[in-house]
């Protein structure tokens, strides 16, 4: 419990530092904004002072010299216009600061998350991550835009008003000043009284949402059990509790927020007039001062109310900031900057052990040697560990024991760029970006156009592309041209080949495609045979028939190995059984058409 709250405090501190740093990041902009703020406030509070001078020095003594009056009027005009303009500029500066900070935090978090190891993504929920990157940073934006700007502005305005009041009349200022501690006291009381009610109603609100969403999901069950009325009653109970919690917080708010602050301001107004009365008795009163005070007081409560209302936002933003900070603290992938390059493409696994969760080994003492240019296939059950093999080779995960070598160099010797350039992956899902054909093959690697065309030719896609309306610039994806499944698969192959990799990995690339598409893949593989090292993980055995060597994996170990013919010779082997099973599957499919 203690460590938990300690962690929370550390998070808050981290969030505070994260958000605070951004305020100070662009000192020039901050200085300009603050300067504008001070000038605007000065011009603002000068208005009532000028009116006071007019009343006391001109109106009441009936002294109307045109030059002085004109000057006064011009002064009023200039200060008020300047105040409006300066305040506008200052607000914009603060918005700029805030949005700049949020933009930077967003980019930083996004970049950071992208570079977290895949093991992180095994635990993470994508929806939650997205919400961290977008919603939580949006809450931080509110902190900067609303809280920083509004609170700072109002504090300075309050200060300006107090100073102006003090210059006009110290006694009356002191009376007005009473308002500040009493408002702070009222707000404190409000927080104490309403805290529980507010958090109760927030919780009940999310309970209501959960109840609706759960009932929608489970409606067939509710109806099958004839329990509609019971669930309606349950929901009604929840609804009722929500209403009562909200009424509690409305009551606290009505007792202490706006009505109380307005009452206090009426009290202070009365007190100021009373103080003025005392001054009249003493013969030192100036009516103009009272005018100025009336106009200041009418603006005095507003900043106080604004500030208190923003504290809620502040709390939310701090919670969001803490979550973002937590994410930024995750350790990103580690890549060595070794200068090694993949030349030939020979792969070797030596005594490799691996587990995702301790106690549940996925690969056990795995030995594998693929010569450069070899075509090796790995087949086996789902969950036998075959895709894990590829994950390790791509350095998405690191083995818990043993070594993986490419061209006789350990995997760690390669930089990320070298590994990505040397290994091409054809994944199970042919993912097409909403971008041009060219961008879809290039995938942001900045390849030469010749390389892209060559890859398209190798994948037999070039003629198809040439027949498209804008050739390589044709837009694909949802709003663009739709490719057939086979063409999509060819595009993915071209994408993998465009980087001229020495090793090509296929991860179940044919498990959910029709046989026509499978032939496209098979043909491409046949042509690449000998040129590039091929490691193919497949569910469909027809894809791997031509492989030099087929390895049958079971429970993290290779249990059979050999060419298709060799493996078929042992009728009791797993491979032969798998083959028969697929034959049977074809027979069933034939009936299902």
């Amino acid at each position, binding site marked *: 419990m203690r460590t938990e709250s300690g962690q929370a405090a550390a998070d808050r501190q981290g969030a505070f530092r994260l958000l605070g740093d951004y305020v100070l990041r662009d000192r020039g902009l901050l200085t300009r904004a603050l300067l504008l703020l001070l000038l605007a406030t000065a011009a603002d509070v000068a208005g009532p002072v000028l009116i006071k001078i007019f009343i006391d020095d001109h109106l009441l003594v009936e002294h109307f010299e045109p030059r002085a009056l004109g000057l006064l009027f011009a002064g009023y005009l200039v200060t*008020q216009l300047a105040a409006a303009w300066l305040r*506008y500029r200052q607000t914009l500066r603060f918005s700029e600061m805030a949005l700049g900070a949020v933009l930077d935090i967003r980019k930083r978090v996004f970049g950071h998350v992208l570079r977290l190891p895949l093991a992180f993504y095994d635990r993470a929920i994508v929806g939650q991550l997205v919400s961290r990157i977008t919603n939580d940073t949006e809450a931080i934006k509110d902190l900067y835009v609303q809280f920083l700007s509004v609170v700072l502005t109002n504090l300075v305005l309050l200060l300006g008003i107090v100073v102006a009041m003090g210059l006009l009349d110290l006694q009356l200022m002191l009376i007005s000043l009473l308002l500040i501690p009493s408002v702070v006291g009222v707000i404190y009381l409000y927080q104490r009284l309403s805290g529980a009610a507010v958090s109760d109603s927030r919780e009940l609100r999310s309970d209501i949402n959960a109840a609706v969403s759960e009932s929608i999901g489970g409606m067939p069950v509710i109806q099958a059990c004839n329990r509609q009325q019971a669930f309606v009653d349950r929901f009604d109970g929840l609804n009722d509790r929500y209403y009562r919690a909200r009424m509690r917080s409305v009551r606290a708010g009505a007792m202490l927020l706006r009505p109380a602050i307005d009452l206090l301001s009426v009290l202070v107004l009365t007190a100021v007039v009373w103080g003025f009365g005392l001054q009249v008795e003493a013969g030192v009163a100036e009516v103009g001062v009272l005018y100025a005070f009336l106009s200041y007081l009418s603006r005095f409560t507003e900043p106080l109310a604004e500030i208190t209302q923003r504290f809620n936002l502040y709390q939310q933003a701090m919670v969001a900031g803490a979550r973002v900070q937590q994410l930024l603290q995750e350790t990103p992938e580690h890549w060595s900057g070794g200068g090694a390059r993949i030349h030939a493409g020979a792969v070797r696994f030596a005594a490799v052990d691996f587990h995702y969760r301790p106690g549940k080994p996925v690969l056990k003492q795995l030995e594998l040697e693929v010569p450069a240019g070899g075509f090796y296939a790995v087949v086996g059950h789902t969950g036998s560990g075959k895709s894990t093999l590829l994950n390790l080779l791509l350095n998405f995960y690191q083995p818990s024991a043993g070594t993986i070598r490419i061209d006789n160099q350990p995997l760690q010797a390669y930089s990320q760029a070298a590994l990505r350039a040397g290994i091409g992956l054809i994944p199970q899902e042919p993912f097409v970006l909403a971008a041009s054909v060219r961008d879809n093959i290039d995938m942001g690697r900045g390849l030469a156009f010749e390389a892209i065309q060559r890859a398209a030719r190798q994948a037999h896609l070039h003629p198809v592309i040439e027949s498209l309306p804008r050739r390589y610039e044709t837009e694909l994806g949802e709003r663009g041209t739709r490719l057939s499944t086979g063409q999509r698969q060819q595009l993915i192959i071209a994408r993998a080949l465009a980087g001229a990799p020495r090793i090509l990995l296929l991860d179940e690339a044919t498990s959910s495609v029709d046989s026509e598409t499978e032939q496209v893949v098979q043909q491409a593989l046949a042509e690449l045979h000998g040129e590039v090292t091929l490691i193919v993980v497949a569910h469909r055995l027809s894809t791997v028939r031509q492989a030099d060597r087929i390895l049958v994996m079971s429970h993290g170990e290779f249990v059979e190995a050999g060419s298709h013919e060799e493996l078929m010779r042992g009728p009791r082997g797993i491979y032969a059984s798998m083959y028969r099973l697929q034959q049977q599957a074809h027979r069933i499919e034939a009936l299902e058409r």
Partner: protein
Amino acid sequence: MTLFLKLGWFFRQHWRTYTLALLMLAGVAVLNMAVPWLIGRAIDALVSGAGEARVQLLSLLALGLAVYGLRFGWRLVLFGTSYRLGNLLRLRFYQRLTRQGQAFYNVHNTGDLMARATNDIDAVELAAGEGVLSGFDGALTLLLVLLMMLVVIDWRLTLVALLPFPLMALGFYRISRSVHHQFQRALEHFSRLNDRTQEALAGIRLVKAMGREGAEDAAFAEIAQCAADSNYRVARSEALYEPVIFLSMAAAMALSIGFGAWLILQQALTVGALASFILYLGQLIWPMFAFGWLLNIVERGSAAFDRIESLLETPDSIADCGERVPDGADIVVQGLDFSYPDSRAPALLGIEFGLPAGGVLGIAGPTGAGKSTLVQLLMRYWERSAGEVRFGGQPLQALQLSALRQGFAYVPQDAFLFSISIADNIALSRPGATLQEIEAAARLAAVHEDIVALPDGYRSLVGERGLTLSGGQRQRLAIARALLSDAPVLVLDDALSAVDVQTEQRILEALRRGRRGQSCIIISHRLSALQHADEILVLSHGQLMQRGDHETLMARDGWYSRMYNYQKLEATLDAH
């Protein structure tokens, strides 16, 4: 404003509370008018040296307290009533949901329904609370302030001082329009940002395999920049509000002081009256704001109310107008056709079969053949297109819906558990079942040991805030739920798919022994589960492809025998 007409029934129903709230609001407005007036009188009394202003100041205090009380009161009454409206709409909405069948849920996705139950109801609530407040209070304040200015103080001064106000109103109107548009744009950019992030993170393997981190960074930066730009435009428009108010007020102030001074010189105005006038001027900002605010929330509330209303008025997708109850539990299906509402291809075509009470029917076939649709039609989750289904000797339409549903204990494909205790989840089918009965059902479903091993046993909570159970455990709990009910027909819709073969056989064996004349319909991909059925229907593309018992079907080369052999081969491979 049609929103207030549409909500008329609610206002009429609660006219007493609304009248009370409006009276209190009016009281506040009237009393507030007296504050500047009293201050003006106090100043005049003090300046003229006519003595103290004790009376005025004491009335000011009393006034402050009275206003405080009224403000407290109207908040409770007005907001309380609007919350009641929200509650009422939410409850009605929920009741509608419980009366809708699958045709409805196919058209409306959960996210959309949730949005209506939460955001839309909030918007209506806001219109009925704050909307009424700002409309009424704004108009009243405007009226009273103008009255005080024109009648009590000086009509000439009022006309002169109010010159800048139409400009302020125009400014508000134009700003709020551009803020609205820019805000929409900002929302769009935000959702693009969401989509982009979602896409990148969902495809993280590809990003990493292609070394696309840099390219993704750049694409994200571009959209994030767009979002920042559109947010900046919103901020820029919103920042205009303040200068507009400030300048209008400064101009009004200058005009009233200047003209007021002239009037004082003419002896047509006192110094105190001018002070009151200036205080009144400040009170005019709120009505200007209120009207803009009012338009905004009423517009939103009315769009939201239309969306809610359209759902509240959606008729039940299954009409419950039958009056009879079934006699027995035999099922007869003749020439049954069915197509889903949005598709032309029939999901079921010419299905015929009968299931006498106490019999066991197996249904097999490839994915998408219409197996689940068929059993759901028996329970009227959908309305058949043609043909006839009779249950207990009655056509389905002639039966009370609840009586029909009581005839079936249904275990759907994905076992659904509610966020309540395990015991309550099982007892859902028979509220009031004793713990012994619940345990007996759990034992039959081979899940009793699993439950006892949990920290709180049968009282353990499941769901979001409770335990996470495995798919197999969930399925067995759902089966226990069905077994507890004494419905004459038990329907298992591929309900054992996540349970291992041995457990499946144990459960089926227990079912065979424990059935007290109960009929049973079993849909299963694993054909071994159907072996003991009296009759097995093999569906394909919505039509009956084969039928017969296990032996007859195995004797012929067809889908059933081929699939059976496939699964046997698979089992031997699994044994490796």
